[in-house]
Each structure stands twice: as structure tokens, then as C-alpha cells.
């Protein structure tokens, strides 16, 4: 069996600002580290409060029970929605045998990526959907 190697990683977040509303697009928060055009994303995991209670920005992460209420869409630098409305639940490692979700390596446009609530559930204002992006730099071995 193979296991993922993490070259570089970054906790990123998508904040549900205002009263949480279904179907509204909540874009990811800008992270300078991975907002350059030389970032190649190759794996992803989602985090709930069971794995991380607060992000480094001191934002509260949504409860594990709300993972089923969130879907995520990732866009690359060509605006291609290569991961469309993926249930956040399936990106949480304890829900899928501890595995990371692998992605065909590609350059992403972070602030174009977004989360949507399919049901408000018990998500509170300013809570965040948190993710760990595993990436490498262009040309890095």
C-alpha cells in the first residue's frame, strides 16, 4: 500500500460570513503562500472540529456533524472546475479510511474556489470549512 508524502502544506479556510445561507458561494480566504502561480496542488483533506477546533486565524471550524451540509468546488487557473460540488464529508480522512484525496497535479486559483451550504444545519456565522492543501512548487523534485 502507498502513502502520501507531504512536500508542502497549508491550512486554508472558507468562512461562512453573515447568516449562513444555502447555495451561496463562500470563496476561500486569500493565503499569500499559495496564491502564486507556481503552486501545484496534488492532494487535499477537509478538517472538522474533530481534527482541528480553530484555524491559525482563530476561526472556529464547523462541527463534524455539519460535514454533510457543505460541498466544495475547486477551480484551476483556467477557471476549470475540476472538482465540482464535492461533498466535504468525503474529504475528511477519518470518514474514508484515513486516506487523502489525490488530485491530478494542477495549478489552482485559490480565491476562485468556493464552498456552498446545501443545508444550513447548525453552521454558525463566521465558522469556517477548513482544508489542508498538499502542494509542491513548479520544478521541485
Amino acid at each position: 500500500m502507498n502513502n502520501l508524502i507531504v512536500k508542502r502544506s497549508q491550512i486554508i479556510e472558507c468562512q461562512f460570513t453573515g447568516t449562513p445561507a444555502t447555495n451561496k458561494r463562500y470563496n476561500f480566504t486569500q493565503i499569500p503562500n499559495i496564491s502564486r502561480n507556481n503552486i501545484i496542488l496534488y492532494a487535499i483533506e477537509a478538517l472538522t472540529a474533530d481534527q482541528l477546533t480553530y484555524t491559525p486565524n482563530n476561526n472556529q471550524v464547523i462541527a463534524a456533524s455539519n460535514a454533510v451540509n457543505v460541498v466544495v468546488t475547486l477551480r484551476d487557473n483556467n477557471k476549470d472546475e475540476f472538482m465540482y460540488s464535492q461533498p466535504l464529508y468525503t474529504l475528511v480522512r477519518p470518514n474514508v479510511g484515513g486516506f487523502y484525496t489525490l488530485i491530478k497535479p494542477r495549478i489552482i486559483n485559490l480565491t476562485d474556489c468556493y464552498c456552498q451550504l446545501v443545508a444550513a444545519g447548525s453552521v454558525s456565522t463566521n465558522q469556517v470549512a477548513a482544508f489542508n492543501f498538499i502542494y509542491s512548487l513548479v520544478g521541485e523534485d
Partner: protein
Amino acid sequence: MQKHRIVSPLVEYFLRNNMMRPFADMLGYRSKSIVLAFTAAGTPYSIAPFKRYNFQPDETLNGENALITAIEIICIDQQSVLDNGQTNITADILKNGYLNICDSEQNILSTIPLFNLYAPAYAAGGKTIARKLFMTHWKEQNWQNCFFEFADITGLTTSKGIKFVVYYEPLTNK
């Protein structure tokens, strides 16, 4: 009859580019245990939310001397008493913190929830998750610039400490 392995092109690409390796593969030529003890208020390792707990300088773990291939946190269910005599932390504390791996210019190479570094098999939501070591390919780190933080300090006391095990390959061509 010749046997064929079925490997997806994506997995083959990952294996070829240091993004993946067989789970049972050698983790590193060497490992090192690092214990940090939480201390009383007013001292460098006193307990406070969002306080940076930097590692002590260790040149053998700097990028110019070592390729870090894996890292894990040892909790009380694996080692009850730490090497320095303090009580080990419980795994449920890990969800409150994260580790930052930084280079010599304080650029962050990796931010990792501490939960990810807990390697043993564990039960979550009625499911048992097999042991999975957090494998890395870090080669630009400056160990004393690396640090971890806790957003919530519930459960941390001055009688406790935290233990990391770092697996690395020394770079001998230096």
C-alpha cells in the same frame, strides 16, 4: 504466466515524483525523539493560547543536513511517561493545535494539524482507521524556526509534555 501490476497513471506519477511511497518502505535512516515540557508562567514554554512553541536548535535536523521523511506525535496511549519524567498528553488535545515547518527566512513550508501527526490506529465515528504515518519530503527546514501552537489550551498543564519523533535521512555529501 507473467504477472502484471495494475497501477493507475496518477499513482505511478506520484511514486515517480516523491509524492507517494509504499507504506512499508524505510522511513529514514535515523529517528530522533524530541520532548518539550510545558512550564510555569513566565517561562519560555508556559501555557497560553496561540503561543509559539519553538523547537530547540538542532543542526542535524536542518535542511542542509537532513531530509525529514516522516514525523509523528507520541501520546499517552503509546508512552505514559515522557523521557523527562513528565506525563504525556492525551490524543484529544491534538485537535486544538497545529505545527508550522519554516525555513531559515521564517517562510512557512507546511502547516499541519497536530491531529495528522498522531499515527496509531484509532476509532472515529464507529470506524477504525489504520495506522498511517505522516510522511514528508522536507529539505529546506530550519528546525529552530519550526513551532507549534494551541488555539485552545484545555487539558494542558505544567506537569505534561509533548513528544515528537522525527524520521530523517542525513545528507552525507555535505
